[in-house]
């Protein structure tokens, strides 16, 4: 990340940035003390796709599933809030589908050579939706006060930050305690959302009246929210990118039933189905409809990774041979091909294929029931019953648990499935009251943000279903992960991460099931919708409707 982009890299298609009429701030500064890293937008690719002239106007109807609990991004981090509010709020940076940072509210940035001082140069013509100007003071307030109080993932990043200062109205300087490799990946709209200081300063953030009418800097303004029916966003006429957005508005319909959501697309009520809104088995059918396109791009930043927690604290799961046997027993290819309709990727190990520093030399756990039986014999597994807790997120997950249960039974593991609802699932995981349990976690682009949290023994405190739930503790792994997070430059990080992956591959603290592929389905005349690493979460900014 701290290296200038090699030229070949910028040739890669990064979504469809191409339709941008005015490529923002293409200053490119190399070398010297501060390396300014800037995305040169792929100009060669620009030429190919801009034969089509973006057209102004039109409203897109789409779906949000489930209904978000609120729209103030930063205060609420769950997926539906991110998806809707990512079009209202913005962060300092955006990311291409290759997870390279590109300008959003910061038009350029410098990193000191020791990797400790990050200087962001902000855009000068940005207004909040209520007309107040956006300045560095807002950025400092958002990061240092608002998120420090409300946002656990931002707080984890802030641990590494010594000070946040605004030397002038359009410059923000983050000084770190030590280098932190993934720092530049933390500025996505959902992590360090820019919130208006003039509205929130000195108030009780959670009970601020403005929460019902979110004020951001994004391309769309909040218009109305008819609970249980529709959330309407309208065009921000004062958006700093001239001509953007092309759309007059976006309507997010709320349709609780999966089959009805598919029908809503078929009968033309909605034109865009963001990922996760239709059941997997409907995807092939809907994709084959006339004038329908689909893409699996647009979730690289999250890269949801399905896992099987194995409670390392008790029962047969304490023995790593048992955990290895579980990995050999599961037919993950089957799960991908049949349950997920071929979408996604069977992971090699703890690091997903989108994660940085993946060690590709690891020995994969291929489906091998005989090997699993051998391992169980060797450890003297006595048939102790283990429970399996599925993810209560719908049919696909239920079917998946059935398949895994059957896989495990076939090698002789005595499994009983325990059905529960979302609340019960969260609670059991938080209280560590389970043997085996499904989950899926976001990767956030860098091992220090999304991966190490599941393995560090310092992160095992009960009460959260998202930390080191399995209770794995290995001082060597802790040491390597901690060293890698703050090592500088990247080549050093890489060596440390490769070593830690070898240990994890042997120890199998948890099961690595599938890197999920979530398609976004849309009418082909909706152009340039998925154009960054978070897809529709901010994609409507550049989208337009062709005749």
């Amino acid at each position: 990340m701290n290296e200038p982009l090699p030229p070949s890299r910028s040739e890669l298609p990064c979504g469809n940035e191409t339709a941008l009429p005015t490529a923002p701030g293409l200053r490119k500064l190399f070398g010297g003390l501060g390396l300014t890293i800037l995305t040169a937008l792929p100009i060669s690719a620009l030429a190919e796709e801009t034969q089509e002239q973006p057209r102004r106007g039109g409203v897109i109807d789409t779906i949000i599933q489930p209904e978000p609990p609120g729209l103030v991004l930063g205060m609420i981090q769950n997926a539906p809030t991110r998806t809707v509010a990512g079009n209202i709020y913005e962060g300092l940076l955006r990311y291409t589908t290759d997870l390279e940072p590109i300008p959003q509210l910061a038009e350029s940035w410098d990193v000191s050579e020791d990797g400790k001082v990050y200087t962001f140069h902000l855009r000068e013509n940005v207004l909040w939706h209520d007309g107040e100007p956006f300045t560095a003071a807002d950025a400092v307030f958002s990061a240092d006060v608002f998120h420090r109080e409300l946002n656990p993932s931002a707080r984890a990043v802030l641990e590494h930050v010594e000070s946040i200062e605004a030397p002038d109205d359009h410059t923000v300087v983050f000084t770190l305690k030590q280098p932190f490799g993934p720092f530049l990946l933390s500025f996505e709209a959902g992590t360090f959302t820019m919130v208006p200081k003039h509205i929130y300063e000195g108030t009780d953030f959670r009970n601020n009246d403005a929460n019902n009418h979110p004020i951001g800097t994004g391309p769309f303004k909040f218009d109305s929210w008819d609970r249980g029916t529709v959330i309407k966003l309208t065009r921000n006429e004062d958006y700093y990118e001239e001509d953007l957005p092309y759309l007059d508005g976006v309507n997010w319909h709320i349709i609780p039933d999966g089959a009805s959501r598919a029908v809503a697309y078929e009968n033309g009520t909605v034109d865009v189905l963001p990922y996760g809104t239709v059941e997997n088995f409907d995807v092939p059918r809907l994709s084959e409809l006339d004038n329908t396109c689909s893409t699996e791009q647009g979730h690289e930043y999250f890269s949801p990774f399905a896992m099987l927690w194995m409670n390392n604290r008790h029962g047969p799961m304490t023995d790593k041979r048992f955990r290895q046997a579980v990995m050999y027993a599961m037919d993950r290819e089957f799960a991908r091909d049949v349950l997920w309709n071929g979408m996604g990727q069977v992971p090699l190990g703890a690091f997903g294929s989108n994660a940085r520093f993946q060690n590709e030399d690891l020995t994969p756990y291929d489906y091998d029931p005989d090997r699993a039986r051998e391992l169980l014999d060797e450890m003297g597994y006595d048939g102790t019953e283990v429970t399996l807790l599925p993810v209560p997120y719908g049919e696909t997950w239920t079917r998946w648990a059935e398949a895994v249960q059957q896989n495990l039974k076939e090698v002789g593991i005595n499994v009983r499935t325990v059905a529960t609802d979302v609340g019960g699932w969260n609670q059991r995981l938080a209280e560590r009251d389970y043997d085996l349990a499904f989950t899926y976690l976001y990767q956030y682009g860098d091992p220090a943000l999304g991966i190490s949290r599941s393995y560090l023994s310092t992160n095992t405190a009960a009460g959260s279903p998202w930390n080191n739930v399995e209770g794995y503790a290995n001082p060597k792994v802790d040491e390597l992960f901690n060293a890698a997070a703050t090592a500088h430059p990247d080549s050093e990080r890489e060596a440390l991460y490769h070593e830690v992956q070898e240990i994890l591959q042997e120890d199998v603290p948890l099961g690595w099931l599938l890197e999920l592929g979530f398609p976004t389905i849309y009418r082909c005349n909706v152009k340039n919708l998925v154009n960054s690493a978070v897809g529709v979460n901010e994609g409507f900014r550049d989208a337009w409707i062709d005749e």
Partner: protein
Amino acid sequence: MSFFARFARNRGALFGLIILWVIIGMAILAPIVFPESPWRMVQRPFLPPFAVDGMWLGTDTMGRNVAAGLMHGAWVSLLIGLISTSVALLIGVPLGAIAGYYGGWLDDALMRFTEFFQTIPNFALAIVLVAVMQPSVTSIVLAIALVSWPPVARLVRAEFMSLRHREYVEAARLIGQTNTQIILRQILPNTLSPIIVLASLMVATAILLESSLSFLGLGDPNAMSWGYMIGAARTVIRQAWWLSFIPGVAILLTVLALNLVGEGLDDALNPKLARERH
């Protein structure tokens, strides 16, 4: 006329009995015909019936044999129907007997208690109970029993009230039999026929309830039941209609058979009424 002859005079009942035996046969033979688990993924998914040898009824969304599921499911459905009905009888019969026999404030108290259950819609209460207790065969049986005993209690109470002043009861009292003896030895045997008829219908209702619960995803995740099969297939009904159709027909036939048998029992046990009716 023998009991069976009276029963067989109702052609429908005979038909129902045959179907019921077929289904019981399926349940018993399931582990012999399909010794492997019905959860086992054995073939390509979404095979229509008769498309591949050995897969008479095709395969489901995950390539599991539908025929195996159907036969193992018969066991689960019948078992849940029978056990939950027995439990409901165990609750309903004593309560109704006590209320009907003693009358007075005891009757009032017990009937208010019964009405408390009757005022809550059956299915809603069953959903809440299963959701609270976590879905498992035990919790489903309990939930079904808890929502289906009130009609039993009411029926038994009415029978007891009409029988308790009969001469043979008075005579039993006169020769010094205790209340318990009178309830168990004198009156209860005379209320059995309506209870048996009601029970046969309750088994049918219980099977339907279990199917509805499983359909909603509140079935025991470890038991392959017909309701589960329909619930799992519902979402793919446009790709593979037979996956919901086949277990649906199985439920229909079972419930129909139980109803027909119930009617036949009614005819056989109350020949007087039956003759008037025909």
